């Protein structure tokens, strides 16, 4: 635990009744909303990769990615139960609410993590399994335990974990890492900072209260907006890389360009906006942006790359 967490109260987790959690609490531990985006980008990697994978093995690969993401979420909730209890957004989670014992959550996450990696290795291939293990380990050890409470660069470096799923999907089919899968990784990696900093601009009160050094807390809103502009500007050419590399056609290139310009426009608006409206709009658009980029890539390949 970090220095910050030592000052925080121990949570009521130990006081909950054995067997008090119900199925919905275990589902909540998996962070289903985060998992859905991870599964989608993982599927995109699997779909865009050259070659074919038997549908049963593709299903297993997707289940393993989903289970790995859920495991990361469960272990993250176990570790962060002290600060979750103090933040409005997270105090209703199973651990801070006292509906589940901490050990139960850790055991659940641990079994899912090990099970998903072993299953991926045995049923699909070892490269995909190693990438899945790396994703879980990075999210738990590097982001959650090491960086999150220590540096405002937490989400930049921690973004590696969120960006790896398309590479896992790609590796499930090809058994390797390729430039194309690294491009998919780079898109999510560059998208993550403006996405989270937009969120933290209108949510910094909670983070400040629990001592998590998010950029607006330690460097202020102006510096955060400058960084958002910088990363949004860098994201635009990265999203065009699939077109330049011949992974996708002109329709993708034009649509990605327009989406990137719209995202940049929202970042400029955030720069001039002193209210929370701009950051809220940018945060909402960022989710649609990433989703549409991957939908376009999938559609492009489904249409035979003719678009």
């Amino acid at each position: 635990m970090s220095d910050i967490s030592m000052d925080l109260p121990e949570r009521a987790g130990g006081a909950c009744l054995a067997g008090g959690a119900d199925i919905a609490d275990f589902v909540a531990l998996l962070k289903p909303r985060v998992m859905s985006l991870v599964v989608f980008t993982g599927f995109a990697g699997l779909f865009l990769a050259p070659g074919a994978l038997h549908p049963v093995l593709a299903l297993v690969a997707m289940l393993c990615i989903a289970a790995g993401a859920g495991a990361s979420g469960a272990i993250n909730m176990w570790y962060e139960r002290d600060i979750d209890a103090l933040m409005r957004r997270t105090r209703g989670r199973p651990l801070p609410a006292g509906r589940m014992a901490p050990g139960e959550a850790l055991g659940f996450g641990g079994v899912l993590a090990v099970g998903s990696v072993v299953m991926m290795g045995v049923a699909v291939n070892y490269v995909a399994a190693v990438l899945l293990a790396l994703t879980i380990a990075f999210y738990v050890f590097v982001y959650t335990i090491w960086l999150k409470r220590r540096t405002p660069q937490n989400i930049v470096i921690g973004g590696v974990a969120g960006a790896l799923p398309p590479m896992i999907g790609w590796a499930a089919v090809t058994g390797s890492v390729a430039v194309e899968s690294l491009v998919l990784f780079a898109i999510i990696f560059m998208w993550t900072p403006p996405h989270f900093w937009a969120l933290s601009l209108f949510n910094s009160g909670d983070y400040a209260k629990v001592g998590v050094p998010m950029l607006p807390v330690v460097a202020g809103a102006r510096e955060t907006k400058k960084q958002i502009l910088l990363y949004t500007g860098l994201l635009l050419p990265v999203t065009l890389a699939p077109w330049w590399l011949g992974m996708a056609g002109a329709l993708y290139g034009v649509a990605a360009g327009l989406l990137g310009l719209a995202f940049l426009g929202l970042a400029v608006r955030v720069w001039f906006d002193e209210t929370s409206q701009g950051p809220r709009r940018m945060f909402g658009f960022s989710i649609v942006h990433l989703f549409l980029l991957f939908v376009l890539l999938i559609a492009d390949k489904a249409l035979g790359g003719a678009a």
Partner: protein
Amino acid sequence: MAGRPGLTEQHRRQRAKNLALLAVLATMAVLFYLVTIVRMGGQ
């Protein structure tokens, strides 16, 4: 079941979890069977 006499809320919750675990294990068994068939068939 909720209507069964003498069954507390905790029992009901535990029973639901047991059934969910059974469903997961049954699904895993089917999945392992299918994966074995696919791998043995050389894909």
